[in-house]
């Protein structure tokens, strides 16, 4: 299949970029620049630095396993993969663009196929007290993200006009200083605009609803990669262009991030639908990313970027697993399951690994990232640091409740005939599990690369202060 090949090639290219990125040199590498619209100063300028390199790799990995997970889609298969690949194109584009115009262009490209993917291949669900149709999920998601884009677009144009150098090039724009008031206003635009995509509280409700409606691979890409676009936008565009704005709004971001963490965890605890649990856990985990950004410390931001990577892999694994279970059981209500580990051994084992990553077990990638975020947060504000740690403990509560209820206990007769994941699915998810463990045990290669990207960014932030 073409998409499998494309997925593999993407992964290999991403790996190539990742391995060949020279962290000792730092800065932007693999750059490429052609003028596109000279009159407007738009140019095709791509390149990766320490922050985007792991994101590119993340996209490659999630895409790769997403393609294999959606192997059994047989409704308009071709269209599905076309849209999926378009989405991935957009995502890659955002991560490598060094030109605001193209960054925005790819950003939209990544967001819009989502509507069709969810609307056509999604699933509606009815709950005891309310119902969510797939159309509702798709519409809500798209409207939210477009609303975010509007803010971003306005701010982008404002920057372009204010800079007055007839260029959309991020590197050029970064060199200029912007007036304080301008920075305050438009950093907020970026923070909220991109923040919507990152699940920033209280603009997060699209995310659980969208996940519930979306098909498996889309959920994977969506939570795994797309939410990272928002976070990436905040750090690359927001913090990169507006150091003073970032400092002014850091406390607000810290508060919102902490709310994300705790609120998401508590909400997840009350959910009865597998996908809602994971959806809210995504909200909670993206909170760590935002908290990390808000520390404005090298350690914290490093942790946040690693958390973006780690959460991407982890949540993709979660959704893949939920998809596998749903494909066989056709329900996702936690209350109905009991003891299915007996029939789905591999799935249960993988779910445990994902769950443990989620609750920050050392030896898995989540711990390293969260630890760094906490270290950074403690240096900024002990109180929010403590809340963050408590949030991690709450994660343990809902994850373990879920594991215990769904997978453990006596096998209920209803699930006698359940089958375990197929070889292909096991392979796709095994890749993700391996990455989680690798990063958890040996984060050195990641940290070196991320560090080389974060240090100059924070350095610029602090020189302004």
């Amino acid at each position, binding site marked *: 299949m073409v998409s499998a090949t494309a997925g593999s090639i993407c992964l290999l290219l991403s790996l190539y970029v990742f391995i060949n990125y020279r962290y000792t040199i730092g800065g932007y590498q693999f750059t490429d620049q052609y003028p596109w619209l000279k009159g407007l100063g738009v140019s095709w300028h791509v390149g990766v630095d320490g922050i985007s390199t792991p994101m590119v790799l993340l996209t490659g990995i999630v895409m790769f396993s997403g393609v294999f997970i959606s192997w059994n889609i047989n409704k308009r298969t071709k269209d599905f993969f076309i849209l999926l690949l378009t989405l991935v194109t957009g995502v890659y584009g955002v991560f490598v663009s060094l030109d605001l115009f193209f960054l925005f262009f790819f950003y939209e490209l990544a967001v819009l196929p989502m509507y069709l993917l969810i609307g056509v291949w999604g699933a509606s669900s009815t709950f005891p007290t309310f119902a969510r149709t797939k159309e509702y999920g798709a519409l809500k998601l798209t409207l939210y993200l477009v609303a975010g884009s509007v803010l971003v677009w306005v701010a982008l144009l404002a920057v372009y006009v204010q800079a007055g150098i007839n260029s959309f090039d991020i590197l050029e724009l970064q060199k200029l200083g912007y007036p304080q008031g301008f920075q305050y206003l438009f950093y907020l635009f970026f923070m909220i605009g991109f923040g919507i995509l990152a699940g920033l509280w209280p603009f997060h409700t699209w995310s659980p609803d969208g996940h519930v409606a979306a098909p498996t691979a889309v959920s994977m890409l969506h939570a795994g990669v797309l939410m990272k676009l928002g976070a990436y936008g905040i750090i690359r565009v927001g913090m990169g262009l507006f150091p003073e704005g970032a400092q002014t709004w850091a406390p607000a971001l810290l508060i919102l991030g902490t709310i994300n963490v705790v609120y998401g965890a508590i909400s997840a605890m009350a959910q009865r639908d597998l996908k809602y649990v994971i959806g809210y856990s995504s909200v909670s985990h993206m909170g760590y990313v935002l908290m990390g950004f808000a520390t404005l410390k090298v350690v914290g931001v490093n942790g946040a970027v690693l958390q973006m990577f780690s959460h991407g892999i982890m949540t993709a694994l979660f959704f893949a697993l939920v998809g596998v279970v749903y494909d066989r059981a056709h329900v996702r209500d936690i209350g109905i399951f009991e003891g299915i580990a007996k029939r789905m051994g591999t799935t249960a084992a993988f779910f445990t690994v994902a769950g443990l990553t989620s609750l920050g077990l050392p030896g898995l990638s989540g711990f390293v990232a969260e630890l760094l975020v906490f270290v950074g947060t403690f240096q900024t504000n002990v109180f929010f640091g403590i809340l963050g740690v408590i949030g991690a403990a709450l994660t*343990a509560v809902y994850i373990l409740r879920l594991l215990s209820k769904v997978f453990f206990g006596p096998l209920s007769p209803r699930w006698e005939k359940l089958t375990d994941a197929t070889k292909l699915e096991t392979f796709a998810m095994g890749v993700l599990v391996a990455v989680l463990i690798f990063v958890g045990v040996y984060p050195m290669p990641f940290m070196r690369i991320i*560090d080389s990207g974060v240090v100059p960014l924070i350095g610029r932030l602090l020189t302004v202060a």
Partner: protein
Amino acid sequence: MPSINLPGMEWAWLIPGLSLLAFAIIVFLGKRLPGKGSYVAITAIGLGFILFWFVLKDLLYSRPATFNVTWFDVSKYSLKWGMIIDPLSVLMLGVVTSVAFAIQVYSLGYMKGDPRFGWYFAVQALFAASMLGLVLADNFLLLYITWELVGICSYLLIGFWYERRSAAEAAKKAFVTTRLGDVGLLIGILILFKQLGTFDMSTIFQAAQRGDISAGILTLVAILIFLGAMGKSAQFPLHVWLPDAMEGPTPVSALIHAATMVAAGVYLVARSFPLFEVAPYALDVVAIIGLLTTLIGSTLALVMTDLKRIIAYSTISKLGFMMLALGSGGYAAAMLYLMTHAFFKALLFLGAGSVIHSTGKQDIREMGGLWRKMPVTAVTFIVAAIALAGLPPLSGFFSKDEALIAIRDAQSPVVYLLALVAVFLSALYVARPAFVVFFGRLKPENAHAHESPPVMTVPMMALAFMSIISGFFVFNWVGPLFGLPAQFKGFGAFLFLEHPEAFHFDVMLAVYSTLIAIAALGLGWTIYHKGLISPASIMERFAGVHRVLVNKFYMDDFYQAIINRVVLAFSNLVALFDRRVVNDTGVNGTANLTAFAGYRLRYHETGKFYDYALAIALGTTLIVIVAFLVT
């Protein structure tokens, strides 16, 4: 005697490393290996035990040292994995490797025929690796990492028979409860890091001793660290998980929930003792919690009927006792107690396991007279029971007396008296299962009971041997007896290489603590064996007390109520808030408002072509006029 060619301290990392390797091998290749990989795990821990002697020998001839490698760097910090080789860590190495080795061998017999035999040994190996890493860790970060890893091994092993709902719930409860404590530990560590910019223990301790950290913060940090220890070591009020943890296979209870992991809390406090020394209030907290725990544990152990739960509450009480000793400044005494306790408590569990394995029952009321059927089990169990009760010359006697001396010297008479009460109670509660299970009349349904195979009894005998002799380490003549260098005199001297502190031995205290223990055993004999005082009549006489005890002071119910009424209610409330307020009002509300506005505004659209044309024309004109006026 130079030890150039022999493995020395710098090889110590291999001890956990081997077990970790064993874990990886079993996970990936287990099904294809003979014995599903069980031999791999046992070989690894066995080699670890051998290596331990080399490390010990090296330590005796040289000074404590640390070794580390960089895990990863982040900005100006460098996070390291390192190990510290000092008497404390080597002592723990010895305890963990020996007990783990014995128990893994025992498991070969106990777990025989289990469908997940290989997985059991994989997790056992992972546990051994993390526990050994925990005791070797030279910085708080690695300590926390391994701390969590032993926690997850405990989770996996408690929930080993996950098809049982109770096992799955117990595993969850154990992990979540200890996790509560871990939150404190992590916060404590992070505050230290914020203050000093390092996780390295020796640096932190030096700074604390120098007074670089303000007293308030130091006390806070010490209490937070102790919170971690409370979770792991099942101290009141976080002790509730340990009895439930008995859902796991019995060798697991012996290794993790008696000998090693639950002792990690005690080890942690001992390891961070330099912090506690300069934070006297924190030390008081440790002592008080320890005292409460030991009293609660020993009273509850009296009324339980499940054999394993009796021992579990006994473990809680003993851990409390160690904490009390630590809180009284009896650092060496607590560690001595930790060591001897590891041997005799593991032995008690293995004995219980042997009984359960053979009778298939756990309730002591259904047992009796088993010593004829299983003599080895009976003898070793009784040895362990006597050691626990603290009769000379068994190991428990020495460790208990050292702890009592520390408590007497540091605490008020009331605390001391209560500690003696705890000693009395522990002898009484251990007498109960010993008499009820092994003596008296053999129940007919247990007629098929038989002695366990040698693969189980030999480790028990080895542990019994250790339970008998390990107390003698306190004496100063032990070192010279083995021809060891002059530094090594006795236990205290070994632990305090820097400031030699021999063990004191108070004859008076020894005499009356022994008398107390004998009195308790005698009372137990009268009640449970002779039946001179019927347990039932006591139960009736103190019906109210009994009910409270059987219900574990209602703590489980209390927590359950909190979880149901407060935590879950709150989370439901938040979820509802999210759906109703944030989503329905905030999100859908906006959408509805937009739709409503459109609905209203559409009446301004006539649909008549020339209306639009007129609007265009007028609009254009207007713009032109405005443009003119402006320019």
